[in-house]
Protein backbone atom coordinates (compact mmCIF):
# COMPACT_ATOMS: atom_id res chain seq x y z
CA UNK A 1 0.00 0.00 0.00
CA UNK A 2 1.03 3.58 -0.36
CA UNK A 3 2.79 5.38 2.46
CA UNK A 4 1.88 8.72 4.01
CA UNK A 5 4.54 10.47 1.92
CA UNK A 6 3.10 9.15 -1.33
CA UNK A 7 -0.39 9.96 -0.13
CA UNK A 8 0.65 13.57 0.31
CA UNK A 9 2.13 13.73 -3.20
CA UNK A 10 -1.04 12.22 -4.63
CA UNK A 11 -3.21 14.65 -2.67
CA UNK A 12 -1.22 17.66 -3.94
CA UNK A 13 -1.51 16.32 -7.50
CA UNK A 14 -5.29 15.91 -7.19
CA UNK A 15 -5.87 19.32 -5.62
CA UNK A 16 -3.63 20.92 -8.26
CA UNK A 17 -5.51 19.28 -11.08
CA UNK A 18 -8.89 20.47 -9.76
CA UNK A 19 -7.56 24.01 -9.23
CA UNK A 20 -6.20 24.11 -12.79
CA UNK A 21 -9.37 22.85 -14.42
CA UNK A 22 -11.50 25.76 -13.16
CA UNK A 23 -9.93 28.64 -15.08
CA UNK A 24 -9.05 26.16 -17.84
CA UNK A 25 -12.67 25.43 -18.70
CA UNK A 26 -13.37 29.10 -19.43
CA UNK A 27 -10.08 29.51 -21.32
CA UNK A 28 -11.06 26.64 -23.62
CA UNK A 29 -14.61 27.97 -24.07
CA UNK A 30 -13.34 31.45 -24.90
CA UNK A 31 -10.73 30.18 -27.38
CA UNK A 32 -7.82 31.70 -25.49
CA UNK A 33 -6.32 28.42 -24.29
CA UNK A 34 -2.81 29.31 -25.40
CA UNK A 35 -2.80 32.23 -22.98
CA UNK A 36 -2.25 29.64 -20.24
CA UNK A 37 0.96 28.62 -22.00
CA UNK A 38 2.02 32.26 -22.31
CA UNK A 39 1.20 33.13 -18.69
CA UNK A 40 2.80 30.02 -17.22
CA UNK A 41 6.07 30.87 -18.97
CA UNK A 42 5.96 34.61 -18.33
CA UNK A 43 5.56 34.22 -14.56
CA UNK A 44 9.23 33.19 -14.51
CA UNK A 45 10.17 36.85 -14.90
CA UNK A 46 8.01 37.89 -11.95
CA UNK A 47 9.26 35.08 -9.72
CA UNK A 48 12.91 35.77 -10.54
CA UNK A 49 12.79 39.54 -10.15
CA UNK A 50 10.94 39.30 -6.85
CA UNK A 51 13.30 36.60 -5.65
CA UNK A 52 16.33 38.73 -6.46
CA UNK A 53 14.73 41.51 -4.46
CA UNK A 54 13.68 39.63 -1.29
CA UNK A 55 16.11 36.65 -1.53
CA UNK A 56 13.57 34.18 -0.14
CA UNK A 57 11.82 31.45 -2.09
CA UNK A 58 8.79 31.17 0.22
CA UNK A 59 7.90 34.86 0.26
CA UNK A 60 4.33 35.78 -0.74
CA UNK A 61 5.88 38.65 -2.70
CA UNK A 62 6.98 36.05 -5.25
CA UNK A 63 3.35 35.27 -5.98
CA UNK A 64 2.55 38.97 -6.35
CA UNK A 65 5.52 39.46 -8.69
CA UNK A 66 4.47 36.51 -10.79
CA UNK A 67 0.90 37.77 -10.88
CA UNK A 68 2.13 41.14 -12.16
CA UNK A 69 4.26 39.47 -14.84
CA UNK A 70 1.30 37.34 -15.92
CA UNK A 71 -0.99 40.35 -16.15
CA UNK A 72 1.64 42.41 -17.95
CA UNK A 73 1.87 39.66 -20.57
CA UNK A 74 -1.87 39.73 -21.07
CA UNK A 75 -1.94 43.54 -21.30
CA UNK A 76 0.97 43.73 -23.77
CA UNK A 77 -0.55 40.98 -25.92
CA UNK A 78 -3.95 42.69 -25.91
CA UNK A 79 -2.34 46.03 -26.84
CA UNK A 80 -0.76 44.47 -29.93
CA UNK A 81 -4.00 42.70 -30.90
CA UNK A 82 -6.04 45.90 -30.48
CA UNK A 83 -3.57 47.83 -32.66
CA UNK A 84 -4.54 45.37 -35.46
CA UNK A 85 -0.93 45.23 -36.70
CA UNK A 86 -0.55 41.55 -35.82
CA UNK A 87 -2.94 38.65 -35.43
CA UNK A 88 -3.75 37.15 -32.03
CA UNK A 89 -1.52 34.10 -32.33
CA UNK A 90 1.49 36.14 -33.44
CA UNK A 91 0.98 38.59 -30.57
CA UNK A 92 0.84 35.77 -28.00
CA UNK A 93 3.89 34.06 -29.48
CA UNK A 94 5.86 37.28 -29.48
CA UNK A 95 5.37 38.60 -25.96
CA UNK A 96 5.81 35.61 -23.65
CA UNK A 97 9.19 34.46 -25.00
CA UNK A 98 10.43 38.03 -24.40
CA UNK A 99 9.39 37.91 -20.73
CA UNK A 100 10.74 34.40 -20.37
CA UNK A 101 14.07 35.41 -21.92
CA UNK A 102 14.49 38.36 -19.58
CA UNK A 103 13.78 35.98 -16.69
CA UNK A 104 16.38 33.47 -17.92
CA UNK A 105 18.98 36.23 -18.33
CA UNK A 106 18.30 37.52 -14.80
CA UNK A 107 18.76 34.02 -13.38
CA UNK A 108 22.00 33.32 -15.22
CA UNK A 109 23.44 36.75 -14.51
CA UNK A 110 22.48 37.48 -10.93
CA UNK A 111 21.20 34.31 -9.36
CA UNK A 112 23.83 31.68 -9.89
CA UNK A 113 24.11 30.57 -6.28
CA UNK A 114 20.43 30.29 -5.52
CA UNK A 115 18.01 27.41 -5.38
CA UNK A 116 16.07 28.59 -8.36
CA UNK A 117 16.64 27.38 -11.85
CA UNK A 118 14.67 27.42 -15.04
CA UNK A 119 14.17 23.65 -15.08
CA UNK A 120 12.30 23.97 -11.83
CA UNK A 121 9.81 26.50 -13.16
CA UNK A 122 9.34 24.63 -16.43
CA UNK A 123 9.21 21.08 -15.18
CA UNK A 124 8.55 21.21 -11.44
CA UNK A 125 9.12 18.19 -9.22
CA UNK A 126 6.12 16.72 -7.51
CA UNK A 127 8.26 14.17 -5.68
CA UNK A 128 9.94 16.91 -3.60
CA UNK A 129 6.64 18.43 -2.44
CA UNK A 130 6.42 16.62 0.94
CA UNK A 131 9.86 17.84 2.01
CA UNK A 132 8.86 21.48 2.18
CA UNK A 133 6.60 21.55 5.27
CA UNK A 134 4.44 24.31 6.62
CA UNK A 135 5.27 24.64 10.33
CA UNK A 136 3.01 26.88 12.37
CA UNK A 137 3.82 27.48 16.07
CA UNK A 138 5.95 24.40 16.18
CA UNK A 139 3.38 22.00 14.75
CA UNK A 140 3.68 20.35 11.37
CA UNK A 141 0.68 21.25 9.23
CA UNK A 142 1.50 19.21 6.14
CA UNK A 143 3.27 20.14 2.90
CA UNK A 144 3.57 23.85 2.15
CA UNK A 145 2.46 23.30 -1.46
CA UNK A 146 -0.76 21.62 -0.31
CA UNK A 147 -1.84 24.78 1.52
CA UNK A 148 -0.92 27.07 -1.38
CA UNK A 149 -2.68 24.92 -3.96
CA UNK A 150 -5.62 24.30 -1.65
CA UNK A 151 -6.12 28.04 -1.09
CA UNK A 152 -6.01 28.58 -4.85
CA UNK A 153 -8.58 25.85 -5.38
CA UNK A 154 -10.96 27.39 -2.83
CA UNK A 155 -10.49 30.86 -4.31
CA UNK A 156 -11.13 29.63 -7.87
CA UNK A 157 -14.19 27.69 -6.76
CA UNK A 158 -15.62 30.68 -4.88
CA UNK A 159 -14.99 33.00 -7.83
CA UNK A 160 -16.79 30.66 -10.23
CA UNK A 161 -19.65 30.14 -7.77
CA UNK A 162 -20.28 33.85 -7.24
CA UNK A 163 -19.63 35.09 -10.78
CA UNK A 164 -20.86 32.05 -12.68
CA UNK A 165 -23.61 33.93 -14.51
CA UNK A 166 -21.28 36.82 -15.46
CA UNK A 167 -18.53 34.47 -16.63
CA UNK A 168 -21.05 32.57 -18.71
CA UNK A 169 -22.56 35.51 -20.60
CA UNK A 170 -19.24 37.29 -21.15
CA UNK A 171 -17.88 34.03 -22.55
CA UNK A 172 -20.69 33.25 -24.95
CA UNK A 173 -22.22 36.58 -25.91
CA UNK A 174 -20.10 39.69 -25.42
CA UNK A 175 -22.63 42.03 -27.00
CA UNK A 176 -25.45 40.84 -24.78
CA UNK A 177 -23.16 41.06 -21.74
CA UNK A 178 -22.41 44.69 -22.61
CA UNK A 179 -26.13 45.46 -22.89
CA UNK A 180 -26.85 43.68 -19.63
CA UNK A 181 -24.22 45.85 -17.94
CA UNK A 182 -21.35 43.39 -17.47
CA UNK A 183 -18.01 44.44 -18.86
CA UNK A 184 -16.55 41.59 -20.96
CA UNK A 185 -13.08 43.12 -20.63
CA UNK A 186 -13.33 43.20 -16.84
CA UNK A 187 -14.25 39.53 -16.68
CA UNK A 188 -11.61 38.64 -19.26
CA UNK A 189 -9.00 40.15 -16.97
CA UNK A 190 -10.55 38.44 -13.94
CA UNK A 191 -10.14 35.14 -15.75
CA UNK A 192 -6.54 36.03 -16.60
CA UNK A 193 -5.83 36.93 -12.95
CA UNK A 194 -7.30 33.57 -11.94
CA UNK A 195 -5.11 31.82 -14.52
CA UNK A 196 -1.99 33.68 -13.35
CA UNK A 197 -2.62 32.91 -9.67
CA UNK A 198 -3.23 29.25 -10.45
CA UNK A 199 -0.09 29.04 -12.59
CA UNK A 200 2.02 30.64 -9.85
CA UNK A 201 0.57 28.55 -7.05
CA UNK A 202 1.18 25.30 -8.88
CA UNK A 203 4.48 25.99 -10.64
CA UNK A 204 6.84 24.62 -8.00
CA UNK A 205 4.80 21.49 -7.58
CA UNK A 206 4.12 20.62 -11.18
CA UNK A 207 5.87 23.08 -13.49
CA UNK A 208 4.46 25.23 -16.24
CA UNK A 209 4.09 22.54 -18.92
CA UNK A 210 1.85 20.43 -16.71
CA UNK A 211 -0.17 23.51 -15.79
CA UNK A 212 -0.94 23.83 -19.50
CA UNK A 213 -1.78 20.13 -19.77
CA UNK A 214 -4.12 20.25 -16.77
CA UNK A 215 -5.78 23.52 -17.74
CA UNK A 216 -6.56 22.62 -21.34
CA UNK A 217 -6.69 18.88 -21.93
CA UNK A 218 -9.34 17.70 -19.40
CA UNK A 219 -11.63 20.59 -20.36
CA UNK A 220 -11.17 19.95 -24.07
CA UNK A 221 -11.97 16.26 -23.49
CA UNK A 222 -15.10 17.18 -21.53
CA UNK A 223 -16.07 19.65 -24.26
CA UNK A 224 -16.22 16.75 -26.71
CA UNK A 225 -18.63 14.84 -24.49
CA UNK A 226 -21.11 17.52 -23.44
CA UNK A 227 -22.32 20.93 -24.48
CA UNK A 228 -23.60 22.12 -21.11
CA UNK A 229 -21.25 24.21 -18.99
CA UNK A 230 -22.05 22.69 -15.56
CA UNK A 231 -21.59 19.20 -17.00
CA UNK A 232 -18.39 20.36 -18.67
CA UNK A 233 -16.98 21.65 -15.37
CA UNK A 234 -17.96 18.44 -13.55
CA UNK A 235 -16.61 16.14 -16.25
CA UNK A 236 -13.34 18.10 -16.48
CA UNK A 237 -12.82 17.75 -12.73
CA UNK A 238 -13.49 14.00 -12.94
CA UNK A 239 -11.09 13.59 -15.89
CA UNK A 240 -8.43 15.71 -14.19
CA UNK A 241 -8.64 13.75 -10.94
CA UNK A 242 -8.57 10.40 -12.75
CA UNK A 243 -5.56 11.57 -14.78
CA UNK A 244 -3.69 12.57 -11.62
CA UNK A 245 -4.45 9.29 -9.88
CA UNK A 246 -3.64 7.02 -12.83
CA UNK A 247 -0.70 9.23 -13.82
CA UNK A 248 0.71 9.11 -10.30
CA UNK A 249 0.47 5.34 -10.00
CA UNK A 250 1.92 4.84 -13.47
CA UNK A 251 4.85 7.09 -12.53
CA UNK A 252 5.20 5.33 -9.20
CA UNK A 253 5.36 1.81 -10.58
CA UNK A 254 7.40 2.66 -13.68
CA UNK A 255 9.65 5.09 -11.74
CA UNK A 256 9.30 7.97 -14.21
CA UNK A 257 8.51 11.70 -14.01
CA UNK A 258 5.20 12.25 -12.17
CA UNK A 259 4.33 15.51 -13.93
CA UNK A 260 5.10 14.05 -17.36
CA UNK A 261 3.10 10.94 -16.60
CA UNK A 262 0.04 12.95 -15.45
CA UNK A 263 0.27 15.14 -18.58
CA UNK A 264 0.42 12.03 -20.78
CA UNK A 265 -2.52 10.55 -18.90
CA UNK A 266 -4.68 13.61 -19.67
CA UNK A 267 -3.79 12.93 -23.31
CA UNK A 268 -4.98 9.33 -22.98
CA UNK A 269 -8.31 10.54 -21.60
CA UNK A 270 -8.57 13.08 -24.42
CA UNK A 271 -8.06 10.35 -27.02
CA UNK A 272 -10.74 8.30 -25.26
CA UNK A 273 -13.17 11.23 -25.38
CA UNK A 274 -12.29 11.85 -29.02
CA UNK A 275 -13.01 8.25 -30.00
CA UNK A 276 -16.27 8.27 -28.03
CA UNK A 277 -17.47 11.53 -29.61
CA UNK A 278 -16.53 10.39 -33.13
CA UNK A 279 -18.36 7.10 -32.63
CA UNK A 280 -21.40 8.94 -31.23
CA UNK A 281 -21.41 11.29 -34.21
CA UNK A 282 -21.25 8.36 -36.61
CA UNK A 283 -24.21 6.67 -34.91
CA UNK A 284 -26.32 9.81 -34.71
Amino acid at each position, binding site marked *: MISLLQGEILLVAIVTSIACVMPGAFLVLRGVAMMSDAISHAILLGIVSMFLWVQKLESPLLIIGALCAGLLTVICTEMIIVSK*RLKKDAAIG*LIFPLFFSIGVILIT*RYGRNIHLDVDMVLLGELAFVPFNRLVLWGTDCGPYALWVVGATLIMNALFIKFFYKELLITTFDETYALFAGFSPIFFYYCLMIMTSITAVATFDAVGSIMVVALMITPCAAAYLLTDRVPALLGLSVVIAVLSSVFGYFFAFYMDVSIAG*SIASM*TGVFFVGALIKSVVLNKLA
Partner: protein
Amino acid sequence: MISFFMAHYTLFLVMYGASLFGITAGVLGCFALLRQQSLLGDAISHAALPGIVAMFLLTHSKEPWLLLIGGVVAGIGGVWCMNIVVAHTKLKKDAILGIILSVFFGLGLVLMTVAQKIPVGSQAVLNKFLFGSVATLLPVDIVIIQAISLFIFLVLFLLWKECCAYVYDPLFIQSVGYSACVIECVLTGLLVLTIVVGLQAVGVVLMSTLLIAPAAAARQWTVRLSSMMILAGFFGCISCVAGVYVSACVDHIPTGPSIVIIATMIVLFSLLFSPVRRIV
Protein backbone atom coordinates in the same frame (compact mmCIF):
# COMPACT_ATOMS: atom_id res chain seq x y z
CA MET B 1 42.49 40.84 -40.21
CA ILE B 2 43.25 37.18 -40.76
CA SER B 3 44.84 36.86 -37.31
CA PHE B 4 41.74 38.49 -35.82
CA PHE B 5 39.57 36.00 -37.66
CA MET B 6 41.69 33.09 -36.49
CA ALA B 7 41.61 34.28 -32.89
CA HIS B 8 37.84 34.39 -32.92
CA TYR B 9 37.33 31.36 -35.13
CA THR B 10 34.72 29.74 -32.86
CA LEU B 11 32.78 32.97 -32.52
CA PHE B 12 32.63 33.41 -36.29
CA LEU B 13 31.65 29.79 -36.77
CA VAL B 14 28.81 30.17 -34.29
CA MET B 15 27.76 33.50 -35.82
CA TYR B 16 27.75 31.97 -39.28
CA GLY B 17 25.61 29.02 -38.18
CA ALA B 18 23.21 31.19 -36.20
CA SER B 19 22.79 33.79 -38.93
CA LEU B 20 22.17 31.13 -41.57
CA PHE B 21 19.53 29.66 -39.32
CA GLY B 22 18.05 33.09 -38.62
CA ILE B 23 17.61 33.68 -42.37
CA THR B 24 15.93 30.30 -42.91
CA ALA B 25 13.61 30.65 -39.93
CA GLY B 26 12.72 34.22 -40.89
CA VAL B 27 11.80 33.28 -44.45
CA LEU B 28 9.71 30.26 -43.44
CA GLY B 29 8.14 32.25 -40.61
CA CYS B 30 6.49 34.50 -43.24
CA PHE B 31 4.33 31.59 -44.40
CA ALA B 32 3.46 30.67 -40.82
CA LEU B 33 2.58 34.26 -39.93
CA LEU B 34 0.42 34.83 -43.00
CA ARG B 35 -1.42 31.56 -42.50
CA GLN B 36 -1.99 32.45 -38.83
CA GLN B 37 0.00 29.47 -37.65
CA SER B 38 2.47 31.34 -35.49
CA LEU B 39 1.83 29.19 -32.43
CA LEU B 40 2.18 26.01 -34.47
CA GLY B 41 5.93 26.51 -34.15
CA ASP B 42 5.64 26.49 -30.37
CA ALA B 43 3.57 23.30 -30.44
CA ILE B 44 5.88 21.50 -32.89
CA SER B 45 8.98 22.41 -30.93
CA HIS B 46 7.51 20.87 -27.77
CA ALA B 47 6.15 17.88 -29.68
CA ALA B 48 9.64 17.03 -30.97
CA LEU B 49 10.94 16.11 -27.50
CA PRO B 50 9.50 12.55 -27.27
CA GLY B 51 10.91 11.79 -30.73
CA ILE B 52 14.38 13.00 -29.82
CA VAL B 53 14.43 11.05 -26.56
CA ALA B 54 12.90 7.93 -28.11
CA MET B 55 15.63 7.98 -30.77
CA PHE B 56 18.22 8.30 -28.01
CA LEU B 57 16.66 5.36 -26.16
CA LEU B 58 16.59 3.22 -29.29
CA THR B 59 20.11 3.92 -30.53
CA HIS B 60 21.97 5.06 -27.39
CA SER B 61 23.83 7.54 -29.55
CA LYS B 62 23.99 11.32 -29.46
CA GLU B 63 24.59 11.75 -33.20
CA PRO B 64 22.86 15.06 -33.99
CA TRP B 65 21.36 13.87 -37.28
CA LEU B 66 19.87 10.74 -35.67
CA LEU B 67 18.17 12.79 -32.93
CA LEU B 68 17.08 15.18 -35.67
CA ILE B 69 15.26 12.39 -37.52
CA GLY B 70 13.50 11.38 -34.30
CA GLY B 71 12.45 14.98 -33.68
CA VAL B 72 11.15 15.43 -37.22
CA VAL B 73 9.11 12.22 -37.00
CA ALA B 74 7.56 13.27 -33.68
CA GLY B 75 6.95 16.83 -34.94
CA ILE B 76 5.14 15.55 -38.02
CA GLY B 77 3.25 13.13 -35.76
CA GLY B 78 2.14 16.09 -33.66
CA VAL B 79 0.86 17.99 -36.71
CA TRP B 80 -0.88 14.85 -37.95
CA CYS B 81 -2.66 14.37 -34.59
CA MET B 82 -3.63 18.03 -34.66
CA ASN B 83 -5.19 17.66 -38.11
CA ILE B 84 -7.17 14.59 -36.99
CA VAL B 85 -8.60 16.48 -34.01
CA VAL B 86 -9.40 19.51 -36.20
CA ALA B 87 -11.24 17.29 -38.67
CA HIS B 88 -13.34 15.46 -36.08
CA THR B 89 -14.22 18.03 -33.41
CA LYS B 90 -15.55 21.54 -32.96
CA LEU B 91 -12.71 22.43 -30.57
CA LYS B 92 -10.98 25.76 -31.12
CA LYS B 93 -7.60 25.66 -32.82
CA ASP B 94 -5.58 27.00 -29.91
CA ALA B 95 -6.99 24.46 -27.46
CA ILE B 96 -5.80 21.72 -29.82
CA LEU B 97 -2.36 23.33 -30.03
CA GLY B 98 -2.20 23.42 -26.24
CA ILE B 99 -3.17 19.75 -25.95
CA ILE B 100 -0.58 18.58 -28.48
CA LEU B 101 2.08 20.78 -26.91
CA SER B 102 1.57 19.67 -23.32
CA VAL B 103 0.75 16.00 -23.88
CA PHE B 104 3.67 15.37 -26.24
CA PHE B 105 5.99 17.25 -23.92
CA GLY B 106 4.72 15.23 -20.95
CA LEU B 107 5.39 12.04 -22.89
CA GLY B 108 8.87 13.37 -23.60
CA LEU B 109 9.46 13.96 -19.90
CA VAL B 110 8.40 10.40 -19.10
CA LEU B 111 10.80 9.02 -21.71
CA MET B 112 13.46 11.39 -20.43
CA THR B 113 13.31 9.92 -16.93
CA VAL B 114 13.67 6.48 -18.49
CA ALA B 115 16.69 7.72 -20.45
CA GLN B 116 18.30 9.11 -17.32
CA LYS B 117 18.74 5.60 -15.99
CA ILE B 118 21.06 4.85 -18.90
CA PRO B 119 24.65 5.47 -17.82
CA VAL B 120 25.43 7.46 -21.02
CA GLY B 121 23.60 10.33 -19.37
CA SER B 122 20.97 12.40 -21.04
CA GLN B 123 20.51 15.39 -18.74
CA ALA B 124 22.69 17.36 -21.15
CA VAL B 125 20.38 16.44 -24.02
CA LEU B 126 17.36 17.76 -22.12
CA ASN B 127 19.07 20.99 -21.16
CA LYS B 128 20.26 21.57 -24.69
CA PHE B 129 16.76 20.88 -25.93
CA LEU B 130 15.05 23.20 -23.45
CA PHE B 131 17.32 26.19 -23.65
CA GLY B 132 19.55 25.59 -26.62
CA SER B 133 23.17 26.54 -26.71
CA VAL B 134 24.40 28.30 -29.79
CA ALA B 135 27.79 28.52 -28.13
CA THR B 136 28.25 24.77 -28.45
CA LEU B 137 27.43 24.58 -32.16
CA LEU B 138 29.93 22.13 -33.59
CA PRO B 139 31.15 22.05 -37.18
CA VAL B 140 28.90 19.03 -37.73
CA ASP B 141 25.87 21.07 -36.58
CA ILE B 142 26.84 23.84 -39.00
CA VAL B 143 26.99 21.32 -41.84
CA ILE B 144 23.48 20.14 -40.92
CA ILE B 145 22.15 23.71 -40.77
CA GLN B 146 23.77 24.46 -44.15
CA ALA B 147 22.31 21.38 -45.79
CA ILE B 148 18.82 21.96 -44.39
CA SER B 149 18.82 25.66 -45.32
CA LEU B 150 19.95 24.85 -48.84
CA PHE B 151 17.24 22.21 -49.15
CA ILE B 152 14.54 24.56 -47.87
CA PHE B 153 15.54 27.38 -50.21
CA LEU B 154 15.66 24.96 -53.13
CA VAL B 155 12.13 23.71 -52.40
CA LEU B 156 10.84 27.26 -51.97
CA PHE B 157 12.51 28.31 -55.22
CA LEU B 158 10.95 25.44 -57.14
CA LEU B 159 7.48 25.75 -55.61
CA TRP B 160 7.46 29.54 -55.16
CA LYS B 161 4.40 30.25 -57.29
CA GLU B 162 2.35 27.44 -55.77
CA CYS B 163 3.25 28.34 -52.19
CA CYS B 164 2.43 32.03 -52.71
CA ALA B 165 -0.92 31.24 -54.23
CA TYR B 166 -1.69 28.71 -51.51
CA VAL B 167 -0.91 31.14 -48.70
CA TYR B 168 -3.20 33.85 -50.04
CA ASP B 169 -5.95 31.80 -51.65
CA PRO B 170 -6.11 28.06 -50.96
CA LEU B 171 -9.32 27.68 -52.95
CA PHE B 172 -7.82 29.24 -56.09
CA ILE B 173 -4.89 26.84 -56.12
CA GLN B 174 -7.30 23.90 -55.94
CA SER B 175 -9.48 25.31 -58.69
CA VAL B 176 -6.55 25.41 -61.12
CA GLY B 177 -5.74 21.77 -60.49
CA TYR B 178 -3.03 21.67 -57.82
CA SER B 179 -3.42 19.55 -54.73
CA ALA B 180 -3.75 21.81 -51.67
CA CYS B 181 -2.89 18.82 -49.50
CA VAL B 182 0.52 18.36 -51.14
CA ILE B 183 1.46 22.04 -50.74
CA GLU B 184 0.23 22.00 -47.16
CA CYS B 185 2.38 18.94 -46.44
CA VAL B 186 5.42 20.52 -48.09
CA LEU B 187 5.09 23.77 -46.11
CA THR B 188 4.46 21.97 -42.82
CA GLY B 189 7.31 19.55 -43.47
CA LEU B 190 9.72 22.40 -44.08
CA LEU B 191 8.49 24.11 -40.92
CA VAL B 192 9.04 20.98 -38.81
CA LEU B 193 12.50 20.51 -40.30
CA THR B 194 13.52 24.09 -39.48
CA ILE B 195 12.15 23.91 -35.97
CA VAL B 196 13.89 20.67 -35.09
CA VAL B 197 17.20 21.97 -36.44
CA GLY B 198 16.76 25.19 -34.50
CA LEU B 199 15.94 23.51 -31.20
CA GLN B 200 19.55 22.88 -30.32
CA ALA B 201 20.51 26.43 -31.17
CA VAL B 202 17.88 28.40 -29.30
CA GLY B 203 15.86 25.85 -27.34
CA VAL B 204 12.22 24.92 -27.27
CA VAL B 205 10.76 27.98 -25.57
CA LEU B 206 12.55 30.46 -27.77
CA MET B 207 12.24 28.67 -31.09
CA SER B 208 8.84 30.18 -31.78
CA THR B 209 10.24 33.72 -31.55
CA LEU B 210 12.71 33.11 -34.35
CA LEU B 211 9.81 32.08 -36.57
CA ILE B 212 7.38 34.82 -35.58
CA ALA B 213 9.46 37.90 -34.81
CA PRO B 214 11.36 38.49 -38.09
CA ALA B 215 8.23 37.85 -40.14
CA ALA B 216 6.10 40.07 -37.89
CA ALA B 217 8.63 42.89 -38.15
CA ALA B 218 8.93 42.52 -41.92
CA ARG B 219 5.14 42.52 -42.29
CA GLN B 220 5.08 46.08 -40.95
CA TRP B 221 7.35 47.45 -43.65
CA THR B 222 5.95 45.96 -46.86
CA VAL B 223 2.88 44.50 -48.49
CA ARG B 224 4.68 42.24 -50.98
CA LEU B 225 5.46 38.64 -50.04
CA SER B 226 8.82 38.57 -51.82
CA SER B 227 10.11 41.70 -50.15
CA MET B 228 8.62 40.58 -46.83
CA MET B 229 10.65 37.37 -47.05
CA ILE B 230 13.87 39.16 -47.90
CA LEU B 231 13.32 41.58 -45.02
CA ALA B 232 12.41 38.75 -42.62
CA GLY B 233 15.57 36.87 -43.58
CA PHE B 234 17.55 40.06 -43.00
CA PHE B 235 15.96 40.69 -39.59
CA GLY B 236 16.46 37.06 -38.57
CA CYS B 237 20.12 37.26 -39.58
CA ILE B 238 20.67 40.56 -37.74
CA SER B 239 19.04 39.31 -34.52
CA CYS B 240 21.10 36.14 -34.50
CA VAL B 241 24.42 37.89 -35.21
CA ALA B 242 23.74 40.63 -32.66
CA GLY B 243 22.49 38.11 -30.09
CA VAL B 244 25.57 35.92 -30.43
CA TYR B 245 27.80 38.99 -30.29
CA VAL B 246 26.16 40.35 -27.12
CA SER B 247 26.32 37.02 -25.33
CA ALA B 248 29.98 36.64 -26.32
CA CYS B 249 30.94 40.11 -25.10
CA VAL B 250 28.97 40.28 -21.85
CA ASP B 251 29.46 37.63 -19.17
CA HIS B 252 26.63 35.31 -18.18
CA ILE B 253 24.18 36.27 -20.92
CA PRO B 254 22.89 33.11 -22.58
CA THR B 255 22.69 33.27 -26.37
CA GLY B 256 19.10 32.13 -26.96
CA PRO B 257 17.46 34.74 -24.71
CA SER B 258 19.64 37.55 -26.06
CA ILE B 259 18.63 36.63 -29.63
CA VAL B 260 14.98 36.65 -28.57
CA ILE B 261 15.22 40.05 -26.90
CA ILE B 262 16.92 41.63 -29.92
CA ALA B 263 14.41 40.09 -32.35
CA THR B 264 11.49 41.32 -30.24
CA MET B 265 13.01 44.80 -30.04
CA ILE B 266 13.11 44.90 -33.86
CA VAL B 267 9.41 43.99 -33.92
CA LEU B 268 8.47 46.64 -31.37
CA PHE B 269 10.47 49.26 -33.29
CA SER B 270 8.75 48.23 -36.54
CA LEU B 271 5.32 48.30 -34.91
CA LEU B 272 5.89 51.80 -33.62
CA PHE B 273 7.77 53.49 -36.44
CA SER B 274 7.26 51.73 -39.77
CA PRO B 275 5.99 54.20 -42.37
CA VAL B 276 3.48 51.76 -43.90
CA ARG B 277 1.52 50.63 -40.85
CA ARG B 278 2.86 52.68 -38.01
CA ILE B 279 1.20 53.21 -34.64
CA VAL B 280 2.95 56.42 -33.55
